[in-house]
C-alpha cells in the first residue's frame, strides 16, 4: 500500500527526483519542505507516514528538524537522504530512530526501504 510522504530538501531538483522515484513506486507525496523549519511545520499539519529528510539545509538542518518531529511524534518514520559520508552520520540517524540513512545518489533505494 502506498504511503503518504513528506519530502524535505533545500534543492528543488533533488525534491523533484525523490518525488519521481516515490510516485513511480505508488506512494503519494503530501508535501515538500525546503528547510527543517518548514518540515516541522508541515509534519504537524500533514501528519505523513514517512519523511525523507536532507541533512545540510539552511535555517534548520535535518537532524535538528528530526529531533523536533520526534518530540512531537515519537513514532515518526524518517529516512535521511544525504550526500554526507554515511559511516560518519548514520549513527546520529540511528540515535534519532531513523528508518534509514541513504546516499542521495541512490534515491531508488528508498523504495526498497519502504517495501521492507
Amino acid at each position, binding site marked *: 500500500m502506498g504511503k503518504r510522504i513528506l519530502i524535505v530538501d533545500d*534543492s*528543488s*531538483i533533488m525534491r523533484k527526483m525523490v518525488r519521481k522515484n516515490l510516485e513511480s513506486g505508488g506512494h503519494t507525496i503530501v508535501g515538500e519542505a525546503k528547510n527543517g523549519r518548514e518540515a516541522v511545520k508541515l509534519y504537524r499539519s500533514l501528519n505523513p507516514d514517512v519523511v525523507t529528510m536532507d541533512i*545540510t539545509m539552511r535555517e534548520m538542518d535535518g537532524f535538528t528538524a528530526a529531533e523536533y518531529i520526534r518530540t512531537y511524534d515519537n513514532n515518526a518514520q524518517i529516512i535521511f537522504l544525504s*550526500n*554526507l559520508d554515511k559511516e560518519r552520520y548514520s549513527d546520529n540517524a540511528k540515535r534519532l530512530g531513523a528508518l534509514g540513512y541513504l*546516499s*542521495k*545518489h541512490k534515491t531508488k533505494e528508498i523504495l526498497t526501504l519502504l517495501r521492507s
Partner: protein
Amino acid sequence: MKKKLLIVFLLFIFVLLSVSGYIIFELGNDHLYQEISISITSQLSEHEQHNFDMSGVILILTRLRNHMIFVMAVVLLFVIFTMFFFIRNIMKPLDDMAKAAKKMADGRLDEIIPVRTHDEIGKIGERINDLAMNLQEILLHIWSHTTCSKAILDQIDEIIRSQKSRPTEDCSSGIPLQLQEDVQSVRENIEDMQDMVQSFDAFYDIRLKDGKIVET
C-alpha cells in the same frame, strides 16, 4: 547602475533648483513690482492712482515667494529621501546580489545571497540561491557516482592484473588490449569529471575529502 541613478537624481535636483530658484528670484525682484504697479495703475483713473497702495500686492507676492521656497524645500527633501531609499533598498541589495553571484560563478557555492525582503529583489536572491543549491546537488551527484565508478574500475583493474600474471600458455586468460584501453579511457573520463567538480572552490556546508563528502 548606482552612478547612473545618482546622475539622474542630481540632474533632477539641478532642474528643480534652477526652475524654483528662477521663480523665487523673480518674485523678489523690484522690476516685477514696478511692472505690476505700472500695469495696474495704467488701468486706473488719476484719483484711484493717487490712492492706490502697492503694499497689498507686495505682501501677496512675498507670501507667494515664501510658499514657493517652502514647496521647493519639501520637494528637495522628498527627492533626497527617495534617492537614499533607492540606494538603500534597491541599489545596495542589487549590488550585494551581483557580488555574491560573481563569487558563485567563480566556483564558490558556499556564497549565499542575503535575502532581506519578500519583494521582487528578495525573490531574485532566493532564485539565485536555489540555482546554486541545485548546481551543488548536481555536482555532488557527479562526485558520488564517479567515486563509485572509480571503485568499480579499480576492481576491474585488479582482475586484469591478476589475469595478466597468469602463465601465458593459458589462452583463456588473455585480456584483449582493446578492453584494457577502454578501461583506461573510462578512468580518464571519470577523473576529468572529478577534476571539474573539484574546480569549484567551496560548497555550502560541506567539503570533499578523500573521495568522501563531509560537513564543514
